[in-house]
């Protein structure tokens, strides 16, 4: 479904991604794990068209994404849930979700959009209760749910999730992971970026490990979970955090 072929990206002159290749098949959950500054968000932003790719190609369902505008990419069926949630804080929950459906109003899908509101409120009942509340007053977990709900309102085929577990309590993380499994069961394809490698690999079919802008390792989740390098550099960290 998504094929990335040896792309390079730069911020000014600094290379943030070098020779990155990655693929996601239909209805797969793929995890991308790596430390701070490894280039995970950069990769998602390159897919979404928010930053330009200077070399290499990105294909989505055999269509080349290079050079397309972000709105064209959303229209093709790729939505991103950005890092740190990035909901529109002064706006209400409902307004945020309506903005998520922005690309679809053009297509006169009024009825379908109303159904999607229902679907998302079933997925996250708390959002229905908070519908008219200013979203900046939601808790961190609720904001993350809203960010996911907002992305789903565009009815994507591929969902890009950037560190959905960041700063959330273990219980909330579990809810989010359950949601991811749930969404996949309903036919969605997901590329999941995480520092929380254990959590990510638990729900993913396959995983990639990225370090300083390069893919260092790839494989099935079970294999990565027992891989010595991965354990030392990423899973070990979880324990450290745990004891702190």
């Amino acid at each position, binding site marked *: 479904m998504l094929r990335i072929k040896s792309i390079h990206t730069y911020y000014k002159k600094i290379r943030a991604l070098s020779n990155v290749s990655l693929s996601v098949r239909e209805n797969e959950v793929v995890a991308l794990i790596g430390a701070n500054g490894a280039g995970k968000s950069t990769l998602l932003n390159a897919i*979404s068209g928010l930053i330009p790719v200077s070399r290499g190609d990105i294909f989505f369902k055999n269509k080349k994404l290079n050079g397309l505008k972000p709105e064209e990419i959303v229209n093709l069926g790729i939505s991103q849930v950005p890092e740190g949630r990035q909901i529109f804080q002064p706006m209400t929950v409902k307004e945020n979700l309506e*903005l*998520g459906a922005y690309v679809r109003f053009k297509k006169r899908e009024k009825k379908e959009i109303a159904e999607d509101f229902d679907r998302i409120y079933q997925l996250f009942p708390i959002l229905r209760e908070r519908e008219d509340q200013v979203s900046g007053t939601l808790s961190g977990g609720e904001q993350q749910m809203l960010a996911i709900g907002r992305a789903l309102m565009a009815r994507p085929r591929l969902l890009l999730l950037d560190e959905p577990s960041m700063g959330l309590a273990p219980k909330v993380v579990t809810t989010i992971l359950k949601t991811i499994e749930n969404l996949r069961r309903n036919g969605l394809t997901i590329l999941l970026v995480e520092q929380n490698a254990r959590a990510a690999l638990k729900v993913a079919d396959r995983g990639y490990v990225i370090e300083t802008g390069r893919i260092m390792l790839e494989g099935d989740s079970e294999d990565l979970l027992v891989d010595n390098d991965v354990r030392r550099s990423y899973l070990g960290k979880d324990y450290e955090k745990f004891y702190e």
Partner: protein
Amino acid sequence: MIKLLSSSKWKQLILFTVAVLLIPQILPSDYYFLILNIIALNAIVVLGLNLLIGFAGQISLGHAAFYGLGAYISGILTASYGWPIFLSIPVAVLTTAIVGLLVGIPTLKLEGHYLVMATLGFNIIVSIILVQWDAMTGGPSGLAGIPYLKAFSISIDSDRKFYYLVWAVLGVLFCLSLNLIDSRVGRALRAIGEDPISASALGIPVERYKVGIFVVSALYAAVAGSLYAHYVTFISPKTFDFFYSIEVVTMVVVGGIGSLWSGLAGAAILTMLPEILEIVKEYNVLVYGAVLMAVLVFFPEGLLPGIKKLWQKRQGQVHE
């Protein structure tokens, strides 16, 4: 279209209309109409600018130029070429909108200070043209002999008559703007003002919106400018230099960014303030500055939202 307005908005608008109709009955002298008319003209410019600054988050220091283009184009077409006003005003407004588009496309790619500088630069260029292009604009001494507006053979040649016209135009534009910000387009604009990158990640065409709202705000300024020209019948370049641009931005900020009613309040207060300060004569600039500073220090969100908050606080205390 009007159905879109919520009931609370209706109440506010009815109150507004009643006030506009009542005020003339109680005003002691025609001098006050002059001030009220200037308030309305400023409020029209502020209305458009508020959409640009308060909602889309883009600052312009060039709107005096659009105000001036509206005034000069309609003025020249009627005074020098004998066009009828019902043609000259639409042509002036449309031409200005096109200029807005041509200025907006390159400048809105810029951000923050650069956008401010670019629009300021545009304003200065227009000012220079108005002064230098003597043959067309009348140069620094101005353009005279602009005809009064006419509505159904009634010449709008007094402050009192113009009052009804300009406040009606403001009212209509105000309703249109209220509808705009409550729509899907308005939500998209607010999203852009909030965080343009997130907005574009949702599929909102950010550039197009920024340019679009810039053109709308230029258009509002041009409407005000052309009405102004046919009201005072004499215009000169000084009215349209960048000091006026700063003045209208100040009205937006002092009134309260991001609420149309606050913008109206800002326009009213800052238009009247210099008149009130006539009492303190030679100190008026000083006091004017002090008042502005006080507002920004004590009501950083703007005057109207600040007062509202204070009021709610008091109400709260009363209930305790």
